[in-house]
């Protein structure tokens, strides 16, 4: 959400340069196009130079909480594909999907952490295809169904503080730490702990067999 707000700010500044009224919906089409053109121009100052400790992370939203995942654990970001339901699995495993020939277990991450599950048959949100281990060697392990992928942001390990009341209590167990980014809390999702849980291990064994 923060990223979206940031962009809105830029839009407003662009509109202000054109001398248009405050309400962007009331803009004439020509001015709107001009604003878009302004937005498209490269703006390198927006991306802060990454430091050594910073770990580039994919930022996604789960419920009302922004979470980050190291980019080397993400194999791909995709639209939610067609899911084939599989019987006798935990309720948060929504089934398997065919991703360019690979069979992938789709896990409803909202359901997994205890939030409201995604609606049945829905295709909203994004699928984060994650690796079991960091780097190019990590095998593709599962597709995590999340609300939205906001972008890529640097996360400094040193800034991480223990989870506090600023994030949803139900997520606290799966978070390695919390830091403040763009004035709002950002939780570092602990993927290793996620994979270490017996349910996920059992699931992998079952799906592999």
């Amino acid at each position, binding site marked *: 959400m923060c990223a979206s707000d940031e*962009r809105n700010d830029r839009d407003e500044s662009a509109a202000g340069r054109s001398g248009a009224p405050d309400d962007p*919906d009331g803009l004439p*089409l020509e001015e709107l196009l001009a604003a*878009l053109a302004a*937005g498209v121009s490269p703006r390198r100052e927006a991306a802060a130079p990454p430091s050594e400790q910073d770990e580039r992370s994919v930022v996604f939203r789960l419920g009302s909480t922004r979470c980050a995942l190291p980019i080397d654990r993400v194999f791909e970001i995709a639209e939610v594909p067609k899911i084939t339901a599989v019987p006798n699995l935990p309720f948060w495993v929504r089934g398997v999907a065919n991703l360019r020939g690979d069979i992938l277990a789709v896990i409803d991450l909202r359901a997994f952490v205890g939030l409201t599950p995604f609606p049945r048959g829905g295709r909203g949100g994004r699928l984060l295809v994650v690796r079991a281990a960091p780097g190019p060697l990590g095998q593709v392990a599962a597709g995590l169904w999340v609300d939205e992928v906001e972008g*890529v942001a640097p996360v400094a390990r040193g800034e991480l503080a223990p989870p506090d009341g600023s994030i949803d209590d139900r997520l606290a167990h799966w978070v390695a730490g919390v830091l403040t980014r763009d004035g709002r809390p950002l939780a570092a999702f602990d993927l290793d702990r996620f994979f270490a849980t017996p349910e996920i291990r059992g699931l992998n064994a079952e799906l592999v067999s």
Partner: protein
Amino acid sequence: MLRNWKVWQKLALIAVAMGIMVPVLLYLAVSARNEDIGFALKEEVGTLYLRPLTSLLSRLPERRGRTQALLGGDLAQRREIAALDALIDQDFTALSELDRQVGAELGTTAALGAIRQDWQNLRVQAARQSPEQSFAAHTRVVDRITTLVEDVGDSSNIRLDPLRDTFYLGEVILIWGPRAIEDRGRLRERAAGVVARGQATPEEEAELSLLIAGVDQSVAPIRRAVRLIAEDNPDFAERVKTLARESEEKTGTFLGLVRSRVQRAPAITLSSADLFASGKAAVDAQAVLSSALLERIESEFRERIAGLSRNRNLVLAATVISVLLAAFLVTFVAGLINRQVSAITGMFQRIGAGDFRARAVAMSGDELGRMAASINDVLDNTVALMQSRDERDRIQASTMKLLEEISGLAEGDLSREAEVTADMTGAIADAFNTVIAQLRRIISDVQETTLRVSSAASEIQTTTQHLADGSEAQSAQIVGTSAAVEEMALSIQQVSENAASATGVAEQALANAREGADAVSRTVEGMNSIRVQVQESAKRIKRLGESSQEIGEIVQLIGDIADRTSILALNASIQAAMAGDAGRGFAVVAEEVERLAVRSADATKRIATLIRSVQSETHEAVRAMEDTTREVVSGSGLANAAGQALGEIQGVSGRLAELIQSISTAAQQQARGSDSVAKAMGDISDNTQQTAAGTKRVAVSITNLAALADNLRGSVAEFKLPARAA
């Protein structure tokens, strides 16, 4: 009620009362006879039935005996038995035939059936049985037949016979005869059995004694009955006595034979055949007696039935003849009385009607005939007396009447006339009447003439009075009418002027209406062009809406592309990260691309919002234009109606103007005409006044004439005339 009946009706009543009693008595007599006949008929049936039974009663014991002999070794009996069987069968056939006809009446069918059955059994089993069994079987059949004989006697009334001559016959036939035959038969067979074997056992001895005693006892009742029969039937006495004697002798011989040669003999030397023959003779003699008695009783019954039937028919015939005779006598006597009585009453009716010459005819020499003659004498005397007195009274009365009739003439009363009769006052009355008639004619002529003059005068007077009154009223009316005509002429003039000015107004209205119609049609045209333009605008705006829809679709497509671009950029970032340091520059580009994609998505969302508002406004504009079109259509409809109304006003105004013009013309003509009417009225008024004066003068002279006529009528009024002359 009976008092008012006529004599012959009363006689008929007595006859009817007698007539009701006769059939009742007749019925009683005939039904008693019929009962007796039925009784005797049934007895006759019984005798018919008894005949074969009696025959069987002598034949069956014979067969029993012969069978005993056959079983004892005498094979010669076989042929005899066969002949006997044929005879018995004949008897049974005859019995069956009879039973079919009268069995139900006598109630014998069941018993006869049982006997037949026994007989059949007997025939079938005869050869296989011991002598003792055979004997018992035969005896059973015989006993049954004996019982049946008694039953038939009971059910056919023979035992109940009320007359002595047949009672004893029945007794022998039914009771003593069968018993005697059976006893003798049984003794015969037992004795024959003993003789055949040559000696008797003690039991047989005892039985023989018993049977002999039975046979002995049966003789006495038969003898007694035969004696009584002989007394009651003298013509039959000789025969029955002979037969009875024969039977007794045969029985005596047989009994003697048994006693001397079987019972008491030290050794039996008698042949069985001889003994049997002797027994058979005894049995047959008794059977002959029985059948003779049976024939006798049958003929007795037949005679009795015939006698009873004759008796009954005689009663019927006598009754019918006496009834017919009585009816004839009643009718005849009633007719005689009735005719005499109606002759007398008829005569009285005629006298009552005034015919004193009527006389009754004396038809008979009895009391009624003599009464009719006496009445005739009385009437003759009475009529002679009445005639002489009448003559004198009539002359006196006619003279008095004539005087009375002409007494009014002196006082001037001409209305009465003297009655003209055949006697001597008739001529005088006739002369008076001629005088009166002539006077009456003169007076009535005078009266009629004066009356006519008087009434004519008064009629004329009334008419002239009416004329005079009419002339005066007419004169007054003419003066009034003349004034009215002048007034009318003035008002017509005024009408004429008004009509002329109205014509101008009507033409003005016509012109105005025409202008109005033009204005309305121009309005309608304008509204039609407005409607066309509004519809055109609505179409354009709709097309604009459709275009913005297309724009929306395109923008959505752009949004999708931006979304996919965003994912692509993120994946590019991931790939760049995988490439390590080498991919760092690429990562920057990827991030920038991602940011651009997000901005594009935002912009498309805003464009979509804009397009939605454009579309909703377009819809509203289209709806407003449709409303406008509708209003324009209804407005032009109203304008059209107004135009039509104005057209009609125009037509009406035109016609109005024409009408007013013609009114004006007519009014001018009327004004001219009314002047000449007024002038003519003045002339009429003068004439009328002259007529009234002449009429008054005529009235005066008529009044004088009426007075003269009244005077003349008064002078002849003293004479009185009959009512028809007035």
